[in-house]
C-alpha cells in the first residue's frame, strides 16, 4: 500500500461540494470516505476491503472552506444579524462558543458507562474536557473512563503515537479484565494526532480487533457535528459486528427513545427530566436514553422504539433518520409543548391520553404561568428587551416562548452552530447599542456586557459558562420549563427594579450635604445637623437647561428600559445639574449631560 506524506499533495480541501448556509449538513450514513491528509489512508478501497468487520469511516462532510468563502460567510452572517453595521465589522475573532469534533466525540461517548476511551492527544486535550471543565458544568470530579496517549515531543517529531496508543489499550484491557469487567474500548483521534497523521486503524485491527477507532475530524467539524457523527458511528459500527447482526423489532407502538442527552450540554439534566415526564404523560413508555443512560451492550434498544425524541436540534437527528422511525424535537414553551404532546400522542395512537394530560397539566403544572400572566408583574413584559445568544435549540425555543408566547420584546437572537459563525466583536458593540434589559447567553456574552458597561441583567442560557445544572428543578424545556422561565424572567425584573430604586442614605442630613459638597469639589463642609435636607433638590429642579441639553437628555432616557426610566432620569438630571454647578455654568449644556453619563450607568 502506497503511503502518503502527512500533507499529501493530492489533498484538496475544496474538492467537496460547496458549503451551504446554516445549518451545515451533518454526517450522512455513507461508506464514502473523504480524502484526508493522513497516512495509511490513501488506498481507501483496498484498505476497506482488506478488513473484516471493517471500520466505517465517516465521510468528511463539513466543508473545508477557503479563506475567502469563510470570511464571506461570516460577513453574510454579520450582515444578517447586525444589518449594515455588520459589514463594517472588524475581523477580530473573539472567544469561541462551541468546541470542536474532538470534544464532541469525548462528551458523546464517555457518558456510555461501559465504554473506556483512549484519546490520542497531548495532555491538555485530556485534562481540559476530562477534569477542568467537566467540574464546572456537569459537576463530575473527572471523566473516569477517559485516558490519554499523552503525546509528547518525541511522538510529534519522530515516533508517531502508535506504540503509546497500543500500550494504553493493552493496559486498560488488563485492568478491566482483572476486575472482571467487560468494556468497549474506543480510541479517538484529536487535533494533534490528526495533524501528525497518526492513524491506528491497522494496528488496532491487528492487535486489538475488539477495540474501535473513531476519527473525530477535529479540525473540520464543530462540537455538534462531532457529537452527531459519534452517535451515528457507534450505531453503525455495532450493526457490523456479530453481536449487532440479529433482527430487532419494535417493542410496542408506545416505546419511546430519547436521543441526544450527553455530557456538557447546557441544563440537560433538568430538561431531560422534564422531557421524560412529558413522554410518559402523553402515554409513552420510556425505553432508552441514548447515549446518556446507555450501555454499549444495550444498543439494540435503539431499534426497539416506535418513535424517537431528539433532544437537540444541534445533533442527534442524523441517527434518528438512520433509525427510520418518526422523530420529534424536544419542545419549549407552553404552545410548543402542547403541540409536542399531541403529536407524540398521535404517533403512538394515544391521542386521548395525550389530550387528557394537557388538560390536567394546565390545571396543575402550568397554572402559575396563567396566574403570573394575570397579575401586575406581567405589565412590564412588552417593554422588556431580551437578547438571546445560544445554541440553536435554546435560541429558537426561547425566542418562541418569550417572544411569541409571552410577548417580551425579543431583539437580537443568535443561533450559534459553528465556532466562529458570529462576529463576537460586532456582537459586543451591537449589544452596547441595543441596550437590552436581559441578555441570555454564555460566559462570553456575560463578559461583553460587563466590558462594555451595559446595564443589562445576564441570564445563563448556553455553554460555555461555569454553571452546574444538576438539579432537575431548573428546566427550560417543556411545561415545567415554561413556568420556570417565566418565574426567572419575572424575578429578574424585580431585580432590575431593586437596582434602580434610589438608595437614599439613612444617616443624618449632615452626611448628605457632605457628599454633595465633596462631589462639587469643595472641601467637606463643616455642616450642622440643621442643614436643609432638601436644599440641593430644590435647586436642581429649578435649574435652567439649554434646549440641546434637554434633547440629549431625552434621547438618552429613551434608551433606558422602561421599568428603570423614572429613577434613571432622576439620577441623570441631578448629576448633570451638579456637574454644571461645579463648572460654574449658568445652564446645563449637552456636554455636561454626556460628562456625567458614565457615573449613572450602573
Amino acid at each position, binding site marked *: 500500500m502506497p503511503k502518503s506524506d502527512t500533507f499529501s499533495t493530492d489533498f484538496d480541501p475544496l474538492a467537496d461540494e460547496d458549503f451551504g448556509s446554516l445549518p451545515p449538513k451533518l454526517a450522512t450514513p455513507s461508506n464514502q470516505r473523504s480524502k484526508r491528509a493522513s497516512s495509511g489512508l490513501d488506498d481507501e478501497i483496498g484498505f476497506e476491503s482488506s478488513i473484516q468487520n471493517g471500520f466505517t469511516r465517516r465521510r468528511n462532510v463539513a466543508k473545508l472552506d477557503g479563506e475567502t468563502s469563510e470570511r464571506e460567510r461570516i460577513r453574510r452572517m454579520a450582515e444578517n444579524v447586525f444589518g449594515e453595521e455588520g459589514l463594517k465589522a472588524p475581523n477580530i475573532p473573539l472567544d469561541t462558543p462551541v468546541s470542536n469534533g474532538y470534544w464532541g466525540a469525548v462528551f458523546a461517548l464517555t457518558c456510555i458507562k461501559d465504554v473506556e476511551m483512549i484519546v490520542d492527544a497531548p495532555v491538555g486535550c485530556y485534562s481540559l474536557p476530562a477534569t477542568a471543565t467537566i467540574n464546572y458544568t456537569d459537576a463530575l470530579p473527572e471523566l473516569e473512563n477517559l485516558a490519554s496517549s*499523552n503525546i509528547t515531543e518525541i511522538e510529534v517529531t519522530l515516533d508517531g503515537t502508535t506504540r503509546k496508543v497500543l500500550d494504553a489499550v493493552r493496559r486498560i484491557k488488563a485492568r478491566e479484565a482483572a476486575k472482571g469487567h467487560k468494556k468497549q474500548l474506543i480510541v479517538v483521534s484529536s487535533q494533534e494526532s490528526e495533524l501528525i497523521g497518526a492513524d491506528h486503524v491497522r494496528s488496532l485491527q491487528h492487535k486489538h480487533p475488539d477495540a474501535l477507532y473513531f476519527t473525530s475530524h477535529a479540525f473540520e467539524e464543530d462540537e455538534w457535528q462531532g457529537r452527531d457523527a459519534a452517535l451515528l458511528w457507534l450505531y453503525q459500527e455495532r450493526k457490523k459486528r456479530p453481536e449487532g447482526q440479529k433482527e430487532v423489532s419494535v417493542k410496542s407502538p408506545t416505546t419511546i427513545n430519547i436521543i441526544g442527552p450527553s455530557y456538557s450540554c447546557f441544563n440537560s439534566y433538568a430538561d431531560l427530566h422534564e422531557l421524560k415526564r412529558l413522554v410518559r404523560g402523553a402515554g409513552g413508555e420510556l425505553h432508552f436514553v441514548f447515549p446518556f443512560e446507555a450501555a454499549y451492550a444495550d444498543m439494540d434498544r435503539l431499534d426497539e422504539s416506535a418513535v424517537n425524541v431528539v433532544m437537540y436540534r444541534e445533533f442527534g437527528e442524523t441517527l434518528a433518520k438512520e433509525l427510520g422511525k418518526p422523530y420529534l424535537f424536544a419542545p419549549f414553551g407552553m404552545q410548543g409543548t402542547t403541540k409536542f404532546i399531541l403529536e407524540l400522542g398521535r404517533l403512538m395512537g394515544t391521542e386521548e391520553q395525550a389530550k387528557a394530560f394537557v388538560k390536567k397539566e394546565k390545571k396543575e403544572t402550568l397554572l402559575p404561568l396563567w396566574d403570573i400572566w394575570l397579575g401586575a408583574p406581567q405589565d412590564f413584559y412588552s417593554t422588556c428587551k431580551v437578547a438571546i445568544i445560544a445554541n440553536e435549540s435554546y435560541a429558537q425555543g426561547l425566542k418562541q416562548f418569550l417572544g411569541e408566547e409571552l410577548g417580551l420584546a425579543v431583539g437580537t437572537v443568535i443561533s450559534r452552530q459553528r465556532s466562529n459563525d458570529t462576529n463576537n466583536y460586532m456582537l459586543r458593540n451591537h449589544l452596547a447599542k441595543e441596550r437590552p434589559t436581559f441578555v441570555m447567553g454564555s460566559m462570553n456574552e456575560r463578559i461583553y456586557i460587563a466590558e462594555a458597561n451595559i446595564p443589562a441583567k445576564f441570564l445563563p442560557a448556553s455553554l460555555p459558562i461555569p454553571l452546574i445544572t444538576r438539579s432537575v428543578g431548573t428546566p427550560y424545556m417543556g411545561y415545567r420549563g415554561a413556568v420556570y422561565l417565566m418565574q426567572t424572567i419575572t424575578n429578574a425584573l424585580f431585580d432590575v427594579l431593586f437596582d434602580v430604586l434610589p438608595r437614599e442614605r439613612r444617616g443624618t442630613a449632615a452626611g448628605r450635604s457632605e457628599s454633595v459638597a465633596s462631589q462639587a469639589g469643595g472641601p467637606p463642609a463643616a455642616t450642622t445637623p440643621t442643614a436643609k435636607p432638601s436644599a440641593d433638590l430644590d435647586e436642581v429642579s429649578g435649574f435652567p437647561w439649554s434646549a440641546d441639553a434637554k434633547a440629549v437628555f431625552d434621547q438618552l432616557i429613551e434608551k433606558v428600559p422602561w421599568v428603570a426610566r423614572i429613577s434613571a432620569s432622576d439620577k441623570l438630571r441631578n448629576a448633570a445639574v451638579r456637574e454644571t454647578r461645579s463648572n460654574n455654568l449658568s445652564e446645563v449644556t449637552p456636554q455636561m449631560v454626556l460628562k456625567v453619563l458614565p457615573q449613572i450607568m450602573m
Partner: protein
Amino acid sequence: MPSEELKSGRSINLTPKESSECSMHSATMCPAFGSLRVTMRIEGLVPVLVGAVGCLYGLDFVSHFYASNKPIVSPSLTTRELVETDLTDKVIGIIKEVVEHENPQMIAVMSLCTPETSGLHLELLPRKLGRTEIIPMRVPAYGVPTHAEAKDVAISQIIKRVGENMAAEGKTSDGQLDGLAVIGEVFPTDPVQLGVAVSRMGVRLRTALPHKDISAYYDAPKAKVAAMLHPFYDRTVKELNSFGVQPLYSAPVGAEGTYSWLKNLGLLMQLPNPEIEAIADEEAQKVADELDQNRLDGVKIMIAGYEGSELLFARLMHEAGAKVCYVSTSIKEGPGTKDDAAWLRRRNIPLLFRKRHEDDLEALDEMAPDLVVGSSNIEAVAKRRGIPAVYYTNIVAGRPILLAAGVRPLVDQMKLILSQLNTYRNMRDFFADVDDDDHVREPLKVGI
C-alpha cells in the same frame, strides 16, 4: 480509619510500576493556560491564542474562570490553513485589525500544539505595530509540559522584549543594578510583607511579577537580585541573567526557610554579614513564634499538587508539626527546586517530580493520610474514602505563605478542613452504597 480498609481493593491503580514512561493521566491543565493566566491579567494587553477550536474552547473556559474576564482573540484554524502556508499571514492580519481597533500596548501571541506542529512562523510576526509590542509565546503541550512552565514562557518572553527595548534606547542600567525583584504568583499581600522585611536590610523591593502593569516588567532587569519564589522560572532566570541580575531560589517560608532566604539575599546583595545575620534571625524568630501558636502536630498530610509551589507548602506544614507523608508535583527537578528538595529529603519526606495521577493514587493507598491537599481528581478519590481533602490550587495558592504572616492563614485553613472530619465521613457513609469498589457507577440516571 484503619489503613487496611483503604488498601483493600479500593484502588483504581492503573499502572503497576512497570513502564513508567507512559502516563495516561498526567496532572496538569493544558499548559497554555499558564501563559494565558499571566497575560490576561496584564492591563493594556490583548491575548491572541492560535490553535484548534477545541483548544480555544477549553482554554477560554478555564481562563474566564481562573484568570480574568477578558475576551481572548481566538483565530481558529482549519486544516487548509494548517497545511498551506497562509497561517502566518492570517495571524498577522488579525493582529493588524486588533491594533487598528483597540490600539493596545501589547499583544501576546500564544501558539499552541497544532500551529507549532504545522509551522506557524512566529518569527515573521512584526515586533511592533504603531505603539503595540507584539510578543510571541510558544506553548505547545508537548514542548512545555506543565502550565507552571508556561507561566515562565510568558514572563520570560515579556522580559526579553522589554530588555531589548531598553537596550535599544540605551536605558539599561549598565551594571548599576539595584534592589530586588520577586518572580512568582503569590497572594497580593505577600510581596508587601516581603518588601517590609527586606527594607530592614536596606534592600528596595522594585517589582513583583507577574504584575498587572507592563511597567513592572521594565523594572525587573534593573534589579540586582531576582528572587524566584517558585522554582520553575528557568527561562526567566536566563533572561534576567543576561542583564546581570542574579537569581535567588526558594522563598522565605517557614522559620528555617526565612532565615536562609534572607541570609542568601544578604550575600547576593553584598551586605555586611553581622547585620544580615541579626535581621534574618529576628524574622525567622517571628515565624517560629507564629509556628508555636499555630500547630498541626501529628496530622498526616499528603501534598499532591501541580502548581509548582508544593515544596514550600510542604516545608511549612512540616515545621507546623504535621507529618508530611508524600509530596508530588508536575514540574521537573531543577536548580530552583534544589534547596527545598534537599531540605525535604533530609527529613525523609518522599518527594516526586513530574508525577502522574497514578503515582498519587498509589501514595494515597499506601499512606492513608488524615488530610489531602492535591489536584482535583485526587481530591475526589480521597473524599470518596471520607478523607478530608481540598484542591491545592483553590486553597493553598489563594493564601499568603511568606514570612510570619504566611503561617496562620494556611494552618488555620488546614485545621478548619480537619475539623470537618465528621462531615466528610458522614458524607462517605451516606453515599457508601452508590459507588462500588472501583467507583464505577451505574450509568448516570435522571430519574423522575
